[in-house]
């Protein structure tokens, strides 16, 4: 478990370092990307996905096992649902307004860029709202599920 945590922190540190080096954490760079004034971010993103896509398939083809957990390298894919469009659209609005997304906001915090704090607070609040929404149907179903137990006959 400790090894898994250490590896996770190191992977994150590499990720945060690269996001910083690529100036992903500069809102004006993201703004230039989204206003289609700078091809760098698009090419970078596309090449990251391409390398990841090929790398994962090579691992799977080699029947590799994850070094620290021993699990065979595998993944499941999901079919698009309504929430993948509506949720992503809401995310896109927040991203365009702030020009910062969750990876960079964490790296900004590490650099002591304090404007990341209100954004962080908002993200945490948004996650709580999404969790509550996800829990809502379960809460509403609860009385129904409890009904047979309270009525043994």
């Amino acid at each position, binding site marked *: 478990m400790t090894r*898994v*945590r250490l590896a*996770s*922190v190191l992977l*994150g540190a*590499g990720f*945060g*370092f690269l*996001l910083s*080096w*690529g*100036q992903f*954490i*500069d*809102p*004006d760079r993201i703004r230039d990307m*989204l*206003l289609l004034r700078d091809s760098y971010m698009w090419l*970078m*993103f596309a*090449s*990251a*996905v391409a390398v*990841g896509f090929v*790398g*994962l398939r090579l691992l799977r083809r080699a029947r590799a096992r*994850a*070094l620290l*957990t021993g699990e065979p*390298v595998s993944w499941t*894919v*999901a*079919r698009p649902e309504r929430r*993948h*469009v509506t*949720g*992503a659209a*809401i995310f*896109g*609005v*927040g991203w*365009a*307004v*702030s*020009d910062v*997304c969750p*990876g960079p906001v*964490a*790296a*900004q915090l*590490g*650099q002591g860029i304090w404007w990341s704090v*209100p*954004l962080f607070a908002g*993200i945490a*609040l*948004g*996650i*709580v709202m*999404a969790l509550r929404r996800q829990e809502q149907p379960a809460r509403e179903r609860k009385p129904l599920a409890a009904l047979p137990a309270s009525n043994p006959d």
Partner: protein
Amino acid sequence: MIEGLLDRPPWFVLGPLLGLVVVAAFALLNERVGVTGGFSDVVERVTGRRAALGWKAWFALGIVGGGALFLLLAGERTFSHGYGWLTRELTGPVAGLVLIGAGVAIGYGAKSSGGCTSGNGLGGCTTGSAASLTATATFMATAIAVSFAIKAVI
């Protein structure tokens, strides 16, 4: 101080390196990277919804450390002029409120669509998940449209 860090490396260096982080997460842990998931782990832990932090929370913590490490090695920040268009166009308190609102949209939207730019964009798209590809295309298109709308107004 390593001066080369103050300039962006070529995209064909940085992009593949980020792709390798995605591959390494599978090679070491058989896990899909994602930052919102890490924040959510912390939120769920703090609100009593979960008993222990998952690997993603440690990954997110590592990103904070990676940012700090970069600053240490580069010697200075690569930007120090406020916070993009918000602090240029708005007063401090208003920019702060807008950032909280934008954060709510980011947190709520990413959590309900299964990931952010890293979780769906990098992690999901590399696995070839149709849901992640749909989400990524949607947030990219929305963000481009909203950015042009903002540019038209300010």
